[in-house]
């Protein structure tokens, strides 16, 4: 299994009392709450943390994109990936992801990813995402056309990376007379494309299509949803598309905290992971998280029903119990990852070792303990340790 380290780069110095003053730390929280002096220290600390992961032998380091919020401070993940490109040598740099369809000209990102791929000698992974619902408020992009634009932007970018230019691209949302990207990407045919998602049937159907077979990455969710969505990829591959999905197409991303003992780990992580789920993550309203047309009415109803069940403060015990977070002694964390792997068979594990307000010294301890005590065992997990995939009975009949 490959193990990568993911960072959200939250504004950890946020005055947490804003939770009661504003309806969200997204879009409407005034940016006067951001102190650039503190931000300077945080950005550099976070980059150090990812560089440390690269030194300690992680297979990759990962950044991502969010806008107008305190949850993740990388409106341009390309800037962070660029800062990391020349400070690391062997590990992959994954942008998980960039919202190509949020842009009026997606080729600006295609050019930047190609530049990074050439600079790093082919270490880039490109995450293709639509962005969370609130980005559609920040950008003004119409969420009703999000899926259409996402798919069209993808076709444009892949053609720009693989077909000789110049050529004209004639789409509904994007129409350009001259597509001729310099530089071309280093990797052949192009950087691997991943599809990170909080769980969307539409995304899985698209990622699993035989023309693409992209890595589907389930972001932190309860274990049963992770299993359901990862299995859906395998199921669609088999029943609809007639091929067997390889486990290296399946990824899981989860917050992880390793302490000397189970009790110490829970004690150290508690305030910080609870801040992530109770302050940084909540959106202004469910309708802002799921703006109209962003997903089909059926998916929307499922998502809303799921969200309604989780009102109120989240406790770390609940996150551990539901498998949203992995936390404990090295032995416990190894065991939990191995058990999950046995059930779900992912070959890409993306751990978030800093979350919410977790301070630098605990983050560094977490990274070092994980790298020394957990990662070596996890990297040895292969398909032989996976119980295998069986089609659900209903679908098999």
């Amino acid at each position, binding site marked *: 299994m490959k193990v990568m380290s993911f960072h959200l780069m939250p504004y950890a110095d946020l005055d947490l009392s804003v939770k009661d003053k504003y309806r969200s730390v997204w879009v409407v929280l005034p940016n006067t709450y951001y102190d650039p002096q503190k931000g300077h220290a945080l950005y550099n600390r976070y980059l150090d943390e990812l560089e440390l992961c690269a030194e300690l032998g992680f297979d990759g380091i990962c950044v991502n994109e969010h806008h107008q919020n305190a949850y993740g401070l990388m409106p341009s993940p390309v800037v962070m990936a660029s800062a990391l490109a020349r400070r690391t040598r062997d590990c992959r740099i994954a942008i998980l992801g960039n919202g190509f369809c949020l842009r009026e000209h997606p080729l600006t990102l295609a050019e930047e990813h190609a530049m990074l791929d050439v600079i790093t000698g082919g270490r880039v992974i490109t995450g293709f995402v639509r962005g969370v619902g609130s980005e559609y*408020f920040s950008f*003004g992009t119409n969420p*009703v056309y999000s899926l259409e634009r996402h798919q069209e932007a993808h076709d444009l970018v892949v053609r720009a990376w693989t077909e000789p230019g110049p050529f004209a691209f004639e789409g509904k949302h994007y129409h350009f007379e001259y597509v001729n990207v310099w530089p071309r990407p280093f990797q052949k045919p192009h950087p691997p494309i991943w599809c990170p998602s909080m769980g969307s049937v539409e995304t899985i159907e698209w990622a699993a299509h035989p023309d693409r077979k992209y890595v589907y990455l389930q972001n932190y969710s309860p274990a049963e949803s992770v299993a359901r969505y990862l299995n859906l990829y395998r199921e669609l591959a088999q029943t609809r598309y007639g091929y067997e999905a390889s486990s290296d197409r399946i990824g899981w991303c989860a917050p992880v905290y390793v302490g000397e003992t189970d009790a110490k780990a829970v004690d150290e992580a508690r305030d910080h992971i609870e801040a992530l789920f109770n302050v940084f993550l909540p959106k202004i309203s469910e309708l802002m998280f799921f703006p109209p047309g962003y997903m089909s*009415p059926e998916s929307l109803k499922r998502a*809303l029903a799921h969200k309604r069940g989780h009102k109120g403060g989240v406790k770390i015990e609940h996150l551990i119990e539901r498998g949203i977070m992995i936390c404990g002694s090295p032995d416990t964390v190894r065991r939990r990852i191995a058990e999950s792997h046995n059930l779900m068979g992912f070959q890409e594990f993306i751990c978030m070792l800093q979350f919410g307000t977790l301070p630098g010294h605990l983050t560094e301890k977490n990274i070092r303990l994980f790298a020394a005590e957990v990662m070596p065992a996890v990297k040895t997990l292969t398909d032989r340790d996976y119980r295998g995939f069986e089609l659900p009975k209903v679908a098999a009949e």
Partner: protein
Amino acid sequence: MAFVTQTIDINGCKLSFRRGGRGAPLIYLHGTDGLAEWPAMLDTLAERFDVIAPDHPGFGASEIPGWIDDVSDVAYLYLDAIERLGLSNLHVVGQSLGGWIALEMAVRSTQRLRSLTLISSAGIHVKGVPKADIFMIDPEEQARLAYADPKAGDAAAERAAADKYQDQAILNRIASARFGWQPRFFNPRLERWLHRVNVPTHLIWGDQDRIIPPAYGEAFRRLIPGSKLTTIPNAGHLPHLERADAVAKAMQTFLQN
């Protein structure tokens, strides 16, 4: 007054409308909530007019084909529909989103139109006068904001809370976003063509409209030649529901002249 539901196919769009009454033809173009709450005003109007109340594409029982992207497409669709139904000397009444559609029709062609009545209409932007962002708030909050009378607002909020997870409410919201997300409920190019509205135009605004503030009524009055503005006291964004009698009275005076 009995209304009958009918469907016509316009370029592959199955357009559903209700029709009732007799007299000169009048088309009512609804706002973002669709016709789920039937305006009693339409029953009153049907005593003197042949009232046609369509569900816009994507709303209610009307389908939305792939070729309809924006309000301009909807305006052309209705101009086609009017022609197909053989309507002329048509009174057009539009509320909010429906007012915007009515204006987009009128700047294209008033050949078959007799008059426009625009109730708290969308369609333009007045610099420095923000409209409420209905996509940023819950349907309950939107309902409260739409009424001047807090009691009426609470009752509407209760109905909105009960409906908001229903398919129809979700579809209406998606259709509203399709037409009004960016920029929010206006067409930057509409204003420069409003001089083409050459039929009598009546603007009706609630004096306490917190969704599209009364300053928009004033702006339309300046932009549409010869238009007349009636302000309804103690009414919010839905004066035709909140002060149905006052609106019906103002409309009848205008429509009879």
